[in-house]
């Protein structure tokens, strides 16, 4: 009887993992409220650096020690990844006008808020561009054989009208946290 029970428990666990542990999970509203100032600082700092040259900062290990910087010019994207080749990212990004000290400051703030990546993607509505900073957090459960998905906070850079806001919420399945701050689960990195 015991063996049967154990095997059924094991089978249940196996099924649970195989189906991708589909449980409802969300980055809580409480998290945003308790870290609001830190998150807004990350957003502002990223905005400042982004104006110098567009880039994506992405941590590639759980200890927040290794990272990759994707710097884009008008025609080329350069990916500098410290976990791949141990050359200095500091000197490589210098030619784009970016400073490693500023990046480190941003990185430290991201580490404190457990933000693994910061990037800028744009939404388009009625052929108008709405740029937004995407702050990626921990991985969301997406199933064993599916693409990685992340909890994301989206900071819109342009003030949205009430109509636009509802369109974005409906079409992109966003959840509003603040005036121009939204939450979603996404697999979009590029």
């Amino acid at each position, binding site marked *: 009887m015991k063996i049967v029970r154990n095997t059924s428990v094991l089978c249940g666990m196996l099924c649970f993992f195989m189906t991708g542990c589909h449980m409802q999970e969300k980055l809580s509203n409480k998290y945003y409220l308790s870290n609001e100032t830190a998150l807004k600082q990350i957003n502002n700092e990223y905005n400042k650096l982004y104006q110098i040259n567009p880039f994506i900062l992405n941590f590639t290990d759980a200890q927040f020690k290794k990272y990759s910087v994707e710097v*884009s010019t*008008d025609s080329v*994207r350069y990916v500098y990844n410290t976990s*791949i080749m141990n050359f200095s990212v500091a*000197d490589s990004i210098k*030619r784009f006008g970016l400073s490693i000290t500023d990046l480190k400051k941003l990185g430290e703030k991201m580490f404190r808020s457990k933000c693994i990546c910061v990037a800028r*993607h744009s939404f388009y509505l009625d052929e108008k561009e709405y740029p937004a900073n995407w702050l990626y957090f921990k991985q969301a459960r997406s199933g064993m054989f599916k693409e*990685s998905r992340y909890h994301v906070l989206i900071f819109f850079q342009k003030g949205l009208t009430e109509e636009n806001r509802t369109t974005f919420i409906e079409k992109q399945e966003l959840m509003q946290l603040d005036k121009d701050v939204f939450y979603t689960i*996404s697999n979009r990195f590029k």
Partner: protein
Amino acid sequence: MNENQLYNNPVLLIENVISYKEWLRYYIYLLIKNIDLLYRKFFLASFFAGSIIFVNVKIIRASPLRDPYLIACVHDTGNITSLQQSALTVLNGMDTSIASPFWPNVKPGKFYNNVTENIKNPNILYQGGMTNFCGYAAFANFMLLRDPERYAHLMLDLYRTGVASSNSTHLKPSAAVRKAAGTLFGKGPLDINYADQVLFLSLADHFKGYMNVFNLKYDEGDEDNLWASTTLAKFNRMMKQILAVKLYARGSDLLRPMFMSRYRYIKRKLPENDVILYVNSHFLNPSFKRFITLRVPTHYIHLYSIEKRKKGFIITYWDYGLKTQQAVTQKMFDKLIFGIICIKKNKQ
């Protein structure tokens, strides 16, 4: 930042590109050139020159910090070739204000503008965030580079008549696809690139592989699903049937090419062929480790160059609307490639 601006900055070039050997050569050249000066003020000048060489060599040797990417200049010059020019002339006589009844949501102005921009700069072609259009985007990028005139004719026929023929292929997109083009949302610049939407959706609707068997008809949101996926055989079929090119492909959808050095093979093929790689994007963009990383190909990239370094390779490729240059380790490189598609370059 503008790429030309970046490369034309002499300070950056001196700081980053010139190796200490080049510095030495430069100073020896200066010494020889000013030999009469040296003869007259030998001690002072040689001491001065020597100290400069010493300091510079020391500084440059001590900094392994030079950007390795700057060695190869990868940006496009922006000059329009004769092929592009002839493609643009096809568009010149068009009335860009007449909307097509076959594509109700595609605005004509934006459509023609998108086609023109693609012809002028094929590398800006963007597959869209979160979509499975990478195969079609790689195909379109290749078509724009190899035969932009054919691209122009194909796009015009598709837009104006709702059907298009190229070699043995007759594209006739379904009503659902024609209705969906122009309405994609949340895919980044693809949202406003109507011509790209038309092409990707039409190709996905026409070409089917075994992966598409479970979802043959387009429904809203299928651009992110298996409906839009492209297997290696399907990609090859697309190239042969639309572009009538002779290609040679190695690899498969499940097993990596079975030969010893993929690097040597690609390096050998690159000078005479256009090379498109079928890769596992998890190893191209390493992020947080997953519990299980599926060892299957997920993405197509157009490879421009590959250079061997001490511990790996520096590759330059096109994907997601830009040329990308990045380093990959030997281990990553071995796990990365599932398919190598070589297409003989045209003799110009």
